[in-house]
């Protein structure tokens, strides 16, 4: 059975790139382009892992992370904060809220990100 991944990413070019790569590696990928959509898809699909962008339209990814952690149905889904927004305060907030990692997208190829996710899913 394929692992389900939810990618919440507002940049369509990046969202499609990661979707393509993840599907090629055998994942079932769901996309969401803003926090409201992300929350709905997370509740509906209950993925094994969520890749969450931080700078999202209308609502910051950290607020969405708070909502995810407060909802008992989806609070246990591991969330990786996944952004090019390299701000220590935001990073600390995300980690304190329960994100398992904070990845700067530009510093990793899609393959490297997949390796990280596979490691997390093994745990």
């Amino acid at each position, binding site marked *: 059975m394929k692992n389900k991944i939810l990618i919440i990413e507002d940049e369509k*070019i990046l969202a499609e*790139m*990661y979707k393509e*790569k993840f599907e090629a590696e055998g994942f079932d990928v769901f996309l969401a382009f803003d926090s409201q959509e992300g929350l709905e898809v997370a509740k509906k699909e209950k993925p094994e892992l969520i890749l969450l962008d931080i*700078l999202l339209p209308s609502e910051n990814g950290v607020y969405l992370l708070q909502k995810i952690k407060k909802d008992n149905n989806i609070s246990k889904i591991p969330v990786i904060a996944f952004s*090019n927004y390299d701000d220590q305060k935001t990073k600390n907030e995300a980690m304190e809220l329960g994100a398992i990692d904070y990845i700067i*997208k*530009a510093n990793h*190829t*899609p393959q490297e990100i997949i390796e990280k996710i596979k490691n997390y899913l093994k745990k």
Partner: protein
Amino acid sequence: MNQLFFVLPILSFILIFFLGIIVFLKNPKGSQNRTFFAFSLSLLWWLVVNFIVDYIKDLSISFRFSQLAAIGPIIAAPLFFYFSLIFPRSEKKPTKIQVFFILFFCVILLILVPTKFNVEKVWSEEWGVNFKPGWLYYFLGLYLASYFILIFKNLFIVYKKANSLEKTQIEYLLLGLFFTLTIGLITNLGLPLVGYNRLVTLGPSLSVLPFVGFVAYAIVSKHLFEIEVILTEILVGAIGTLLLFQIFMAQNTFWKMTNSLMFILFFIFGWLLTKYTFREIKRREEAEKLSQAKTEFLSIVSHQLRTPLTAIKGYLSMILEGTYGKVPIVAQKPLENIYASNERLIRLVNDFLQVSRLETGKIDIELKKTNLESLIRSTVDELWIKTKEKGLYLKFEKPKEQIPEILVDKEKIRQVVLNLIDNAIRYTSVGGINISLEKRKNYVRIIVKDSGEGLEKEEAERLFKSFSRGAAGQKMWTEGAGLGLYIAKKLVELHKGKIWAISEGKQKGSTFYVELAIQ
């Protein structure tokens, strides 16, 4: 002297009362604010009761109050101990055993306070009321000294993990406490031991004034509780009130006029001081807002720059990995060059962002116990392929003795090592790089030695400045803006460590040293 015994307690009372109220009102639900307020109240008790002892005419009431004065410090000490656990971040709570002992000693002492074990008797002297302390009085000194040791210990532990602002706040608190303890122990314990009790009732006022002074200075200079403006007004008001009072208390026309003149002069300067303080604080707040806006701007800009670079990196890596089929041989090298150039751009964005943060002091370090040997080994593994591509060796010599784990920000030190090795790779064409780790008495030393271009003495001295390269960097085709070593230096300095380079000259290689204290 009599005037001092009258004026000083009143001044102390006004200052502590308003400081406590203002701190409480700033955040009534905050545990730090509430604890500080309760602590202020217990100090006020101590001040007021001692004042009454000196000025009440009835000796039996004086006797009772001289015993009750001890309630203030008995309660103040555990309150401040609790404050030292939750300041500056409310992360700790006292353990159950600590709570038990705090309550146990508090209750026992409070029960014994109104007994002759505390104060045996009082009598009138020319200068005021004298007293004979009982054994409990000296036990109280031991009780207070023990709490102060615990408080200092708590604040020192927090100090190590604190950021720069919190460190300054704690420094002022510690200084204030040190002076309070020293003066208090002298006036209320040391001197009574040799039979001089004159300063006992003045002791509270003398000893808490430095504490109030240092806390006040911390508020004004470093936003302790963000009430510096109001505090300035309170201070000016308190002193003005006393000067006005002095006018009415003056014995003759000459002193009335002198005190009036002093009051008018003080009023003018007080008004100017308040105005200047408002202006300074407003200017500081604007500068802080500007700095914050600049930081956010930098983060947003770097985010925007990184987004298209991420897409280029991602798709190129997928093409080179064969996701879209085998790459034609003629296209392989050009694609790899594009990938490498894109990586260079990403590194530049990362470096510029980091330098900006270092320059504006917006980088904090998170100190954690770190195994430097593992850290260096993993960094070496990361860069091994790069050295192999250039035909160089990269060796990490196992340390001769066990290196203890030290308190560092792991990611920052990893970057220091990465930048040093990366720099060595760039400026070495033949041979390779040796990395070693040594333990000295109070510090560990990381050594990165290369067989590269080497440095002249003047070059080594300016090497760690930003945008600086040695002559080799200008001659050789090397990528990078010359920021790597500058960033490494700043990160080492954040850890209060040292970094330097030596070389025997051109073509004789270079050795870079980093020293970090063992904590």
